[in-house]
């Protein structure tokens, strides 16, 4: 069963939280189930005439019953807090930036400064191309109503809300193609509001960007090319382009205070 198999650096940390919580959950559930079944078997009515002892309370036991769960949740909260702060922090210098715009019922992925924009439809979901082992910052917008951008392989989602852009970092670290979807119910074709994420080596990503930098695309088909020399030449051009672009970049396009946490509107 392909669950909790992280395909990004951030997801590996998130998976750590899942593992700790699942382990705690199993221990607690096993303990409580054991108590319940022990009581049921040990003290099941077998027609004994003797009245059971009519005790009503036991102060030390009851205090233990408060303290143990309290200690458990304090521990769990500590783990949660540390990992959440780390996860929500934004890197100041992302390798790539993608603007994701959700609309009923598909997505537009555009790469600011590269003149690449991919818009899908419910019938032809778009593809989000990301470089492997490089940090990509996602700027998430909604064109109409509440949506949510979920990539299960990254164990992560964030809501796309009209008027409240969100920003977060992704560092995919496994080459491959992963499904993604809208997880906030948004009407008729919510179920078809899917997309795929294609994680490719950084060099291929650069080449893909440059070959598609001609304008908007209706579909983001990723066509790998094997001409190494052409690719290397291309990479030089791409890097030059990046420098020019970064010099001419409109500052309004980027999150203003990118080193701070992303939760300000």
């Amino acid at each position, binding site marked *: 069963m392909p669950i909790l198999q992280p395909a990004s650096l951030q997801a590996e940390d998130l998976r750590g939280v899942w593992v700790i919580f699942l382990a705690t959950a199993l221990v607690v559930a096993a303990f409580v189930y054991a108590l319940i079944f022990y009581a049921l078997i040990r003290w099941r009515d077998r027609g004994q005439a003797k009245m059971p002892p009519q005790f009503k309370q036991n102060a030390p036991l009851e205090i233990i019953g408060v303290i143990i769960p309290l200690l458990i949740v304090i521990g769990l909260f500590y783990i*949660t807090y540390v990992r*959440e702060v780390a996860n*929500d922090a934004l890197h100041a210098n992302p390798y790539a930036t993608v603007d994701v715009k959700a609309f009923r019922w598909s997505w537009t992925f555009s790469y600011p400064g590269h003149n690449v924009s991919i818009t899908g439809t419910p019938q032809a979901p778009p593809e989000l191309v990301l470089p492997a082992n490089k940090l990509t910052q996602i700027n998430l917008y909604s064109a109409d*109503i509440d949506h949510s951008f979920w990539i299960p392989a990254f164990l992560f989602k964030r809501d796309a809300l009209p008027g409240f852009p969100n920003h977060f970092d992704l560092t995919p670290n496994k080459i491959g193609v992963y499904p993604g979807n809208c997880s906030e119910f948004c009407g008729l074709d919510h179920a078809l509001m899917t997309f795929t994420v294609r994680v490719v080596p950084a060099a291929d990503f650069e080449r893909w960007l440059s070959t598609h930098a001609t304008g908007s695309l209706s579909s983001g088909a990723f066509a790998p090319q094997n001409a190494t020399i052409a690719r290397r030449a291309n990479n030089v051009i791409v890097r030059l382009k990046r420098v020019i672009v970064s010099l001419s970049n409109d500052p309004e396009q980027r999150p203003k205070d990118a080193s701070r946490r992303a939760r300000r509107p």
Partner: protein
Amino acid sequence: MITWLTTTNHKRIGILYMATTGVFFVIAGLLALVIRLQLAQPNETLVSASAFNQLFTLHGTAMIFLVIAPFGFGLANYLIPLQIGAPDMAFPRLNALGVWLFIISGLVVFSGAFAAGGAAFAGWTAFAPLSGIQISTGAGEDLWIIGLLLNAIATIIVAINFITTILLYRAPGMTMWRMPVFTWEMLATALMILMAFPALAAVLFELLIDRHYGGHFFDPAQGGNVVLYQHLFWFFGHPEVYVMILPYFGVVSEIIAVFSGKPIFGYVGLVLSAFAIAGLSMSVWAHHMFTTGVVANAFFSAMSFLIAVPTGVKFWNWIGTMWGGRIRLTTPMLFIIGFLLNFLIGGITGVMIASPPIDYHAEDSYFIVAHMHYVLGGGSLFAVLGAVYFWWPKMFGVKLSETLGKWNFWTMFVAFNVVFLPMHFMGLEGMPRRVYTYAATGDLPWLNLVSTIGALLMALSVMLFILNVILSSVILSSVRHGERVVEGRHGQLPDDPWGGCNSLEWATSCPPPEFNFTALPPIRSERPTWDLNHVSR
């Protein structure tokens, strides 16, 4: 018939409530069955996307507002005056207004199905702007809003009545600290209702103004705020979750003590934990909004974790009640044990998703669907059935069949887990909630198929329950006509048909006379009936 329509008697009103929730439960259950059939395999075309969205909207709305919560109000209506030794509720006519508003609210919500464009399809949460006039153009959404406004008013009325009755109408000797745990839990529930339901009424009014009177509360194009809707809705929505569980914590506490042959363990702790939950429930609403990126996740996460402590106290005390007792596995007790086993899973997954790093994956996935059904289905609904089996003889003077009841329990317990356990894995594999179809990838096809088979088994189990009810009414009518004698006195059950009952409702006849008690036993502890029946000790 006319006497039922015009009644102000709390017992009849309670039965009206519970019978109505029974009808709504069957309808909402059938909707769920269609949902499960549509999802039995990928790319199924049993219903259209539009119909599917209406189905789950009505299913959720009905189960929450018309079944699980109001059954608790009905049961409390029936039991509170009996448990505190009062002749009726404080405001009997207001009580009648409440039940009829509730029944009408349900009819209004369901009438949306006949409106042009069909019923509301924006989900039971009706997030704006999805529920706005530009998208939800039909009258179905308006009927949904108006129905729930009536429901909110009915619920506030019932809460005022509970609080007044509990504080002012207790019999001599029935001090607050001698009240049964169920009555205590209802007091906490009523206080939560008074805090939470005005927020629901407000947000529904704002939605209505947005839709028809040129308001822009939630319209981002006009400077409205979509997050405001979520805040207002969940400020109501989370306490509502506890409105749907605290009454059943009370039910569990009552039944588990009787069939363990012991007083409830840690009475004071159980009462205090109810108020701790009620208080904390007001400060956790934004844990439904961890993925919005605009709320203080750490605060709401911490408060949500804390709720695990009073809930843990309850489990501890219920086990303490069984400990060293003499446990009789009657049908009501089986359902309560089912409650413990299922609710524990729902409670533990609840602690998990109180952690934002986990919620980032789980939110709005089938993991959440599994979690909430383990809490409200495996928890509340099992307690509902336990309560029906337990108090049926008190209400109607005849027991439901124990044999059928045990079949009912075992089929329900197995079916419930077959339906909902696989949903955890669907969610982890990436299946979002509220989708009418899904891709045939990974394990989703077989997990969904298993879940649907479980749903069919569950339908069978509900039929066993209905059969049991019909059978008992047949027995009842033959008793009334003197053709038959049921255990105990001629044609009548003893006051305490289960033996070993604690609270005051078991010290009067089955069913009780119109004003409940011809004579009250002395009340010297929280278990007056036990004291009465064990005088020699």
